[in-house]
C-alpha cells in the first residue's frame, strides 16, 4: 500500500521554498524547452556534426552558427564523481550532500550531471534532462535500466513530479477521464485522491467505482463558483500536492454556429476563470509547500485541448478557452518558479466523448488521457501530449506554428 510519510511535527516550521540557481543563457533555455518535453537534446553542428555542450552560439569545432537542437543518445559513462557537502547556495544547503559526476557521453561531449544513488564512477548511465524547482533543465545520470527504485531515489524525486506518496486533487470528477485518472494515480503510488464533484444535486453514476479504488474521496468543488473553490481550499489546500485541473466545458462548433455567447461564457467560466479561481484558492498554499519534505507540493496540471496551440474549427471556443488557459498556465509557471511546484500542460486530442461524436478517429480514449497525465507526472515533464491527434498537431506546431495553424483551417492536402 501507499503510505504517507510520517505526519508533520506541528512545532516545526515548514521548509521555506528557496529557488535553486535559476539563471541561464538563452541557448541553455533551449535545452530546458526540450527537457520540458521529456527529451534529452544537445546542439549538433549543421556543418561538421560536432555535438556541443554546454550550449553555444557557434560550433566549437568549425565556428558554424548552424547549431541545431537534436535528440541525442543519452548513453554514457561516469568518469569522475564527487559528493558535494558544502555550498554557499541556500537551496542546495538544504539538500547536502549532493552527488554529481562527470559523464562522458557516447555522443562525444562530457558533462556535469546530478547522480542517481545507484550509479557512480565507472558505471554506464543514461542522462536525462529534468526540470528542477527553478524551472530549468538539470541533467541527471540514471541507471541504464529503468526500475521502481529509480523513482524513489531522492534526487529523482527532487527532479520529478511523481505522484507516489502524494495527495492529488482531480478537479472534475465528472470528466470522462476522471475515473481512469484516479485509478492510474493510485496505481502510481498516490497516497490519496480527492475527486471534485460539482452540482452534487446531480446524480453521479460512477460513485461506487471511485469508492472501490480505495484511497479516494469526494470533495465538493465547482470551479465556476468562487466560494466553492475557496471553501475547499480552506479545507484541503494544505494537503494537495498535485492539482489536476481537468475542469472544462466543451461544445462543438465555430464562431458562427450559435446566436449567443452562453456556451462560450460557460467554456470561459469553466476553463479560464475556473483556472484562475483554482489558482487563487490553491496556488499560494501549494507554493508554500513546494519544498515540504518528500511529499512536497509538486505539480499543477492543466489539461488542455490541442486546439490551445492549433485552433480547431470543429471546437473553436474550446480552442480559444484552451489558448487562454495556456497563457495563464505559462504565467502561473513563472509565478511558481523557485517554489518547487511545476506547471504541467497536457495537450489532449479530441476525447472520445459525447462532445466529439462527429469527429473521425483516432480519438483519445479517456484512459489514454489519464495515462498521459500520470506519465508526465512520473517523469516530471512540463509539456506533454495525449493521443495521436495531439501528438501530430504538436509536432507540426513545434516545426512551424503559422503553417500548422493555417493548415488546420482546411484546404491543405494531406
Amino acid at each position, binding site marked *: 500500500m501507499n503510505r504517507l510519510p510520517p505526519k508533520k511535527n506541528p512545532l516545526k516550521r515548514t521548509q521555506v521554498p528557496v529557488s535553486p540557481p535559476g539563471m541561464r543563457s538563452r541557448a541553455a533555455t533551449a535545452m530546458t524547452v526540450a527537457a520540458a518535453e521529456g527529451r534529452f537534446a544537445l546542439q549538433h553542428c549543421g556543418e561538421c556534426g560536432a555535438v556541443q555542450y554546454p550550449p553555444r552560439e557557434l560550433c566549437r569545432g568549425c565556428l558554424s552558427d548552424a547549431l541545431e537542437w537534436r535528440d541525442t543518445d543519452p548513453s554514457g559513462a561516469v568518469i569522475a564523481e*564527487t559528493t558535494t*557537502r558544502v*555550498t554557499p547556495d541556500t537551496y542546495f544547503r538544504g539538500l547536502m550532500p549532493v552527488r554529481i559526476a562527470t559523464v562522458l557521453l557516447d555522443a562525444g561531449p562530457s558533462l556535469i550531471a546530478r547522480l542517481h544513488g545507484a550509479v557512480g564512477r565507472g558505471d554506464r548511465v543514461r542522462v536525462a534532462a529534468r526540470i528542477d524547482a527553478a524551472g530549468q533543465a538539470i541533467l541527471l545520470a540514471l541507471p541504464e535500466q529503468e526500475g521502481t527504485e529509480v523513482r524513489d531515489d531522492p534526487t529523482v524525486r527532487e527532479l520529478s513530479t511523481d505522484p507516489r506518496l502524494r495527495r492529488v486533487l482531480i478537479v472534475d470528477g465528472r470528466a470522462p477521464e476522471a475515473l481512469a485518472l484516479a485509478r492510474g494515480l493510485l496505481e502510481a503510488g498516490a497516497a490519496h485522491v480527492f475527486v471534485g464533484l460539482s452540482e452534487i444535486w446531480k446524480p453521479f453514476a460512477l460513485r461506487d467505482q471511485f469508492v472501490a479504488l480505495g484511497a479516494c474521496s469526494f470533495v465538493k468543488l465547482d470551479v465556476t463558483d468562487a466560494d466553492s473553490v475557496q471553501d475547499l481550499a480552506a479545507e484541503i489546500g494544505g494537503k494537495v500536492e498535485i492539482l489536476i485541473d481537468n475542469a472544462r466545458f466543451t461544445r462543438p462548433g465555430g464562431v458562427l454556429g450559435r446566436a449567443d455567447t452562453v456556451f462560450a461564457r460557460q467554456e470561459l467560466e469553466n476553463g479560464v476563470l475556473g483556472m484562475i479561481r483554482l489558482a487563487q484558492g490553491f496556488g499560494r498554499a501549494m507554493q508554500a509547500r513546494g519544498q515540504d519534505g518528500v511529499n512536497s507540493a509538486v505539480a499543477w496540471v492543466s489539461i488542455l485541448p490541442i486546439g490551445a496551440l492549433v485552433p480547431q474549427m470543429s471546437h473553436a471556443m474550446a480552442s480559444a478557452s484552451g489558448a487562454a488557459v495556456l497563457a495563464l498556465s505559462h504565467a502561473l509557471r513563472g509565478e511558481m518558479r523557485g517554489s518547487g511546484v511545476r506547471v504541467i500542460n497536457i495537450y489532449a486530442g479530441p476525447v472520445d466523448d459525447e462532445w466529439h461524436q462527429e469527429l473521425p478517429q483516432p480519438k483519445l480514449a479517456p484512459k489514454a488521457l489519464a495515462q498521459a497525465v500520470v506519465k508526465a507526472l512520473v517523469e516530471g515533464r512540463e509539456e506533454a501530449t495525449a493521443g495521436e491527434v495531439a501528438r501530430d498537431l504538436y509536432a507540426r506546431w513545434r516545426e512551424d506554428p503559422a503553417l500548422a495553424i493555417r493548415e488546420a483551417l482546411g484546404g491543405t492536402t494531406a
Partner: protein
Amino acid sequence: MRTAPYEGVVVTAPFTVPYVRFSPRPAQYWIGAALRGALAAAGLGPRDVDGLTVSSFTLFPDTAPGLTDHLGLTLNYLDTVTVGGACGAVALRRAARAVQAGEAEVVACTAGDANGIDSFRRLLQSFSRFAMDASYPYGAGGPNAVFALLTDHYMQKYGAAREDFGRIAVAQRDNARRNPQALMRGRLTLEDYLNARMISDPLGLFDCVMPCAGGEAFLVMTEDRARSLNLPFARILSAVERHNAFPEDSVQYRGGWAENAGRLWDGAGIGPGDVDLVQTYDDYPVICAMQVEDLGFCAKGEGARFMAARDMTVTGDFPHNTSGGQLSGGQAGAAGGFLGMTEAIRQVTNRAGPTQVPGARRALVSGFGMVNFDRGICTAAAVIEGVQA
C-alpha cells in the same frame, strides 16, 4: 617557434596588501592600495606610471578605464588581464613586452578583489556563462565541486593518494607559519589534513582555499630605470601563456603548461632543475601536482608523488609556495594569481624576510585560472632571475 627574449626589462617593487577574511572595502580600494604600496617601494608617484594592468573579478560596475579615473592615472598602456589565477605571469609578460617595445616606461601590474559577506556566492553564480548554465546549478559547489571531479579522476588515473596532496598542504602551512601576513597560521599535521571534514569528496577542508579580500602589485620597467632608482629587481628569463589547451580531454588532467613547457625552458636557457624555488597556483593541491609534472619536473602523473617525496618548506630541497600560498594565505580573488609572483620577486631579490629561501636566485612562477565550466582555461608560467643589487 622561439619567442624573443625579454631583454632589458625587469620586474621590481612587489607589494602585498595584507589579506582580510571579510572586508567592506571594494576592489577599487584593494587595487589602489596595492598600487600605492608598489610605487612607494619604488620611490615613485602616480605621475610616474604610464602603464597599468588590472586583474579583478569584483570591479563591477567599473572597468580598468574607470580605475584610471578613480586613481588619477594618465596612461599610454592599459590592459585588463582577466585570466584569473594565471594573471601574475600573464600580466608580467604583457607588461614586459609593452616596456620592451617602448609603449610604456613603467607599467604597474595590479590585482585585487573585495570579499564581503555573501559576495563569494554572488561571484560563483554568475562566474561565467558555462558555469551559470552547466556547473553551478549542479549542487552549487563552485570550484570545489569541479576540482573534486578532476581530483577524483586524477587519483584514479594516476594512483595519487590523499596523503600526497596532504603533504603539499601541510608543507605550505609550515611555510605560512613563518609568514605573519598569512591568514591561516595554526599548526597543521598530515593527520589533521586527513581527518578534516570533507568539502566535496575527495577534497577535504585543507584542500580548499578560503576566499578573502586583498591586493597585490608589482612594477615592470627597463633595467636602466630600475638601476637609476637603485631598486632590487629580477630579470624575466622566459614567460608563456596558453588558453584552453586540450579541449578534447573529457576531464582535465593536464594544462597548457604541458604544451609550452619546452618553449618556457628553451627561452630561459635553463631546466627545471635549475630553479631555487617553485610557486605554483595552488587553488587545490592536485593543480600544484599538474603544474609540476606538466612543466617537466617529473614524468606525467608523478607530480603528487614527486612533491610528497620532497621537503617543500622554505628550508627544504624543493621550496614550494614559500609564503604559504593561497591554501594557507587565503585566496583574494585575482590577487591570488599575483601572490606567487610577488613572493617570487621578493625571494630572488633576497627580500622575502621570514620566508626567505637561502640564496634563492631563480624561481618558477606558474599560474592557472578561469574555471569557465569544468576546467581551468588559462595557464601561464614565468621564470625569473634576481639580480643582487
